[in-house]
């Protein structure tokens, strides 16, 4: 399976004219999408599990509308964001359906529905999913949430009444670290207090006792 994918990539790669332009990028991705409507990069295994492509396919299959998905880390630098890439891909594929372009961690994506057919409020559903999920939820989870909201038929409502965004893993970890740091600090203060009391109280008692003895 992996070997096959690698072979395909090599073949596609060889087929692309090696010219330095963003449209070449769209040409290459369009070629990939013609073979498989879901393209998931292999450059981000920490955000995308090995079965990410299969899970995305299962999610978007529930929409009942043809859906093209590109999960890629490449921000194009030169004036080309996900929105422009979707237009270019639609030009090249010339097929109706929902187009999704999103980064591996699930943030900053874009969705667009072309043509008629089942009407899903894809824009609102995507915005709601994007804002409801933690920043590092991963593309698979965000797409899954998008499908759920789109199918609920209440995308607009969801967008206007967002569920609270759960904290990211980084946030959780930072908070835990802060708590542990405070605990450690408290224990250090306690140790200092105990040491001070142990060192000070007997000496004070001794001094007072000696003073009493000599003045009586």
């Amino acid at each position: 399976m992996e070997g096959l994918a690698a072979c395909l990539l090599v073949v596609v790669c060889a087929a692309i004219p090696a010219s330095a332009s963003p449209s070449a990028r769209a040409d290459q991705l369009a070629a990939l999408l013609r073979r498989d409507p879901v393209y998931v990069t292999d450059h981000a295994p920490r955000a995308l599990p090995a079965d990410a492509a299969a899970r995305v396919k299962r999610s978007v299959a529930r929409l009942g509308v043809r859906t093209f998905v590109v999960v890629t880390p490449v921000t194009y630098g030169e004036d080309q964001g996900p929105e422009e890439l979707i237009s270019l891909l639609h030009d090249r594929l010339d097929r109706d359906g929902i187009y999704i372009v999103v980064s591996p961690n699930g943030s900053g994506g874009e969705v667009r529905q072309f043509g008629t057919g089942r009407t899903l409020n894809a824009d609102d559903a995507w915005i709601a999913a994007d804002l409801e999920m933690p920043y590092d939820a991963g593309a698979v989870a965000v797409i899954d949430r998008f499908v759920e909201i789109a199918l609920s038929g209440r995308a607009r409502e969801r967008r206007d009444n967002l569920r609270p965004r759960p904290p990211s893993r980084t946030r959780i970890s930072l908070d835990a670290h802060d708590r542990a740091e405070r605990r450690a600090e408290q224990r250090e203060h306690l140790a200092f207090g105990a040491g001070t009391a142990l060192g000070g109280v007997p000496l004070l008692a001794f001094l007072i006792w000696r003073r009493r003895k000599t003045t009586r």
Partner: protein
Amino acid sequence: MTACKRTAALLAVAFAILLPAAPALAVPALAAPAVRAAASAAEPRPVVSYPPGADRRLVRVSTALARDPLFVDPELAFALGKADRARLRAAMATAGRELGRPVFVVVVPNPRESESQGRNEALLFALHDRLRRDGFYLMADARGSLEAVGFNVPRYFGYSELDSAPDSDHPFTGLADRLIKRLDDSRTATTAPPTMPNLWTPPDPFGQEDRLSTPEAELKSPFLLGLFLIGPLAAIALYWAGRWAISFRSIARKETKGTRQGARGAPAKPTVRWLRRTGAAELARLRAMLPEAEGDPGHTYAASAFDAAQILYDDAGGDRERTLDLVGAIVLARQGQAALADKDPTPRPPCFVNPLHGPSTTRRVTKLVPGQSPVCESCDGKPVKDLPAKVLRVPGPDGPRPHYKVPGVWRDTAFGAKGKDFVPRVLEYLGVD
């Protein structure tokens, strides 16, 4: 004085214990990074275990590199044109010849979510690990940043200004030129014996990217600091502050109440010197009060007490035999003051235990003499067994003796406790009519 010396000795002991402990505390903190460095020197390759499928692109890229030393990932295919690639290949060939090592160039995105956690150096080490070929590895990522690592390459490599893209909005503009320049710079760099580099910061294990080092409470040094330094210092400071406060309070009390209540500081065996000094002071105080108190209810008593006290004081002089007369002078002078202050023609008799204690406040059994005797507040609060130590003693033929054992006017009147004609009887004793 001895208090100071002992305190100093204690502190010295504390320091003697603390000082050898300090380096012992510091050593583990300093040693930890050194131990880690030693461990990574012995194990140069990153030890990252990948979950199944997570190293797919490493397999893909290293397989391609084995066939062709220039690898441009499909995701970044647009970054280098055909002509750029040809120029780059030429530069790679030249560099390879002059370095005597293979040269690999990789153009590949390396996001934070990659197996190398976005660390380009770690990615090159991982590729070298897969390819199992030493040489000069150069890469560019999706931000146009360059990274080079020489594995057993006979050159000295330093930091290069070419490594970050000059224009972050157009990261691939002039990428080929930067890569070629970087190859040329490496080729012409100072020669050095070939070495294997170390990867100082390997990527975190999968799923532990957000793990932060747990802050450890360092309990030993604050404890020891408190135990040996702050605690003892605080105790000493508190001790002296307490002593100062107590002495300040007693001075303040003496100042406000005068010597009428003199239980504290009244000696049980006063010297003649002390008695003369105190007597002079009490007489002076009473003398100052008299003129203003003309017509007061206590004035008559005060005036005659002053006369008697003055005569006693003058007649007694420094004679040890007449110690009790000096005591009587002090008692009379104080009674005179009390008569004026309290507007009382019959001031209370002094404490029987020691008349120098001041006026009595109550009567109790003292077991010193039969029956009850007037005592001051301080003596009232003491158990009977403690009283003999407080008794006023004066010099006698066989050493000091209690004042009530000395025959004479003072024993007969008990300093005014017996009978109501204390002053006249004293004057009579003095031969004054």
